[in-house]
């Protein structure tokens, strides 16, 4: 049984989004960080390429289709790391709060 990620041949998608001929490899800092995290964690054996791919493919259709490419990687990364026990979900939520709080403080000077 296939899933939503298997889009080859599906109809209903519009024009291919065009971009500049030469674009930077990463347009946002977090894109580069997510990409690097995925590659380094796999290279270090913290997660396998197969389980990471599987996590991406298990995303619910609505979540998958409305997520950008790097959002999909991020979602799968969080899922695998928590499921494998590398990180605790509560610790992660707490860290997100700390990062967001610091960002607010920095923004307001």
């Amino acid at each position, binding site marked *: 049984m296939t899933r939503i*990620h*298997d*889009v*080859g*041949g*599906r*109809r*209903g*998608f*519009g*024009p*291919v*989004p*065009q*971009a500049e*001929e*030469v*674009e930077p*490899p*990463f347009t*946002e*800092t*977090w894109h*580069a*960080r*997510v*990409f*690097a*995290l995925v*590659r*380094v*964690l*796999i*290279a*270090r054996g*913290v997660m396998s*390429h197969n389980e990471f*791919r599987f996590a*991406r*493919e298990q995303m619910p259709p609505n979540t998958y*289709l409305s997520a950008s*490419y*790097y*959002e999909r990687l*991020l979602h799968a*990364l*969080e899922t695998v*790391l928590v499921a494998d026990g*590398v*990180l605790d979900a509560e*610790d*992660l939520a707490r*860290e*997100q*709060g*700390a*990062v*967001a709080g610091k*960002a607010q403080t920095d923004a307001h000077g």
Partner: protein
Amino acid sequence: MPTADHSPTPAVRTAALERLLDRRGVVSSTELDDWIDDVVSRRNPAAGATVVARAWTEPALRELLLTDGNAGLDAMGLGWAFGLHADRRFQVVENTARVHNVVVCTLCSCYPTALLGPPPGWYKSDAYRARVVLEPRAVLREFGLELDDDVAVRVWDSTAQTRYMVLPARPAGAQGLSVEELAELVPRNALVGTALARRP
């Protein structure tokens, strides 16, 4: 900017992941910095353009690249030195007067990143992944590439095990140029099949 949705942004989520993993000693931020620096400085379409330029000028290397892409890259000192998957196959597909090749990964975004750097946004788009296997000529037309009816189009769907690069046809009027000058004629899109090599 205030929004109705107060869930953490992707940037916040990524920073949180990185900080936790660093603090736990799983992977350091410095390792990530080094990886990104390596990708940005060494893995880029110019490397692929050089492979093409040398294939155009060295028949033995061209033959090796077409029969065993990994061996061809090794012979050029450009092996899959990224160390991620030494067993990953690199296959070069050659454009001719009768055949035009184009590459996709319909399931995700498999791409010869270790050689060319990260794939472009359009390659990763759902629209490209869905449509290029269904109506390649229409998609190529969107890129400004119109193929004659007597040219066959071959679409190569990449996998976790096999990555493809197109060897575009050498353009007319490109005799007597150096490898560097020839490489300048090869835009990144020609390595994926959505463009041709430029004329000098």
